[in-house]
């Protein structure tokens, strides 16, 4: 993904547009008719009790869980008809890392990044950014701690340069330093034109980060009053927005 493409001014169409979206896990309706709109370059926090449907919502937005009824358009792709088309444009950080335990950190990041046709320079930069370029580089993933695995997983995501970041509890399991890196990555991503949706129970940290908060409960979404004026709405797409964050 070239930077100039990402820096285009905000398009009129929202990045995420859901109307009455229903997603079933087996016979269980994890999403029972969600309405959600997210504009480009926004940081949206999803919160709600366990089992509310946050993870399913993120997975549905990534095109993994089929939306069985309602409207669902992400990055201009209709998820109801063709959810595969959106996948290579989003990055999902899930609870499960999906890494190969027997391969080293560098092997894993390289494999997943090459699969997404990422540039070699981006791969190295992503690993450096997450502090994986030193000793950890050649350690097999099976021997990493939870936080280190999470960093590896994040490096794979960053190297792909997705247009929509979907982070499922990105702060969980990370140390202070790791959390700061996550927040910085998220801010940089939106500055570069990406959109971020994250779920978190770490409200102190996330409320500070987010432009908008959406509460999920019972498979439904409820938008809350914004915690503070949003950067993007105050100065839509403008360079001065960086100063405010």
């Amino acid at each position, binding site marked *: 993904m070239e930077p100039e493409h990402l820096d285009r001014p905000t398009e009129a169409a929202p990045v995420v547009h859901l109307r009455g979206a229903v997603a079933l*896990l*087996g016979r269980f309706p994890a999403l029972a008719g969600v309405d959600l709109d997210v504009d480009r370059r926004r940081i949206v926090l999803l919160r709600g009790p366990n089992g509310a449907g946050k993870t399913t919502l993120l*997975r549905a937005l*990534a*095109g*993994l*869980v*089929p939306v069985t009824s309602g409207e669902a358009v992400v990055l201009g792709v209709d998820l109801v008809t063709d959810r*595969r088309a959106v*996948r*290579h444009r*989003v*990055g*999902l950080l*899930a*609870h*499960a*890392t*999906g*890494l*190969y*335990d*027997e*391969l*080293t950190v560098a*092997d894993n990041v390289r*494999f*997943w990044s*090459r*699969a*997404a*046709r990422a540039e070699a320079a981006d791969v190295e930069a992503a690993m450096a950014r997450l502090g994986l370029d030193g000793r950890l580089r050649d350690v*097999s993933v099976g021997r990493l701690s939870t936080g280190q695995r999470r960093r590896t997983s994040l490096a794979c995501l960053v190297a792909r340069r997705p247009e929509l970041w979907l982070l499922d509890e990105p702060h969980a399991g990370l140390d202070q330093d790791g959390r700061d890196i996550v927040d910085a990555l998220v801010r940089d991503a939106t500055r570069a034109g990406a959109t971020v949706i994250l779920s978190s129970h770490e409200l102190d940290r996330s409320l500070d980060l987010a432009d908008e908060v959406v509460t999920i409960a019972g498979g439904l979404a409820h938008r809350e009053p914004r915690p503070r004026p949003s950067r993007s709405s105050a100065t839509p797409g403008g360079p001065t927005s960086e100063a405010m964050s």
Partner: protein
Amino acid sequence: MIHDALLVAGKDLRLELRSRVALNQIVPFALLVLVLFAFALDPDRGLLEAATPGLYWVAVLFSGLLALQRSFSVEAADGNHDALRLSGLDPAGIFLGKVLAVSVQLLVLEVLLAVGVAVLYSTHLGGWPLLLVTVVVATTCIAAAGTLYGVVAAGLRVRETLLPLLLLPVLAPVLIGSTRAFEAALGGTPSEGWPWVGLMSVFALLYIVAGVLGFGPLLEEA
């Protein structure tokens, strides 16, 4: 598709290089099967010699089953299925890559087993062109059909029991064909073996086409 296939095959082979599960566990298992056959059949009365091609391929088939189980157990890690779907890899490429990786591992195993047979059963290897072509074609059959049925069984708790049930009846023609072709090659009548190679080639082609077309829908679910 080719890029993705090579990437996936490279990943699987690198994984084997780092973990050495096939080398440390599957190869000894295959050699053990050869020794057990010698215990079961009287080696002095020429029984072993007459049955060598069949025993060889039965040993390959069972070891191949283990290699296939291994090939899918590395993909069974938590979240790996999602990661593959999100990766942007072409499903046909994933299929071909896994077939390629399993084939390479099986070929190494077959060479080691052939050495084992030559030493333990005192088999005189001959008829090289037919022998080599049979090995390559039969290996492709096992890897292609195994990978396709492997993904049918993948991600299920009954995987270990379902795969042999699905795969072994399907591979019966390959077992018959490769054994007859080996008999023909070792017996100095290679012309009898080539029709079997033809039949196995049709089989291999069928499963490669089915896998290339079917892997996407199979990866895609729920």
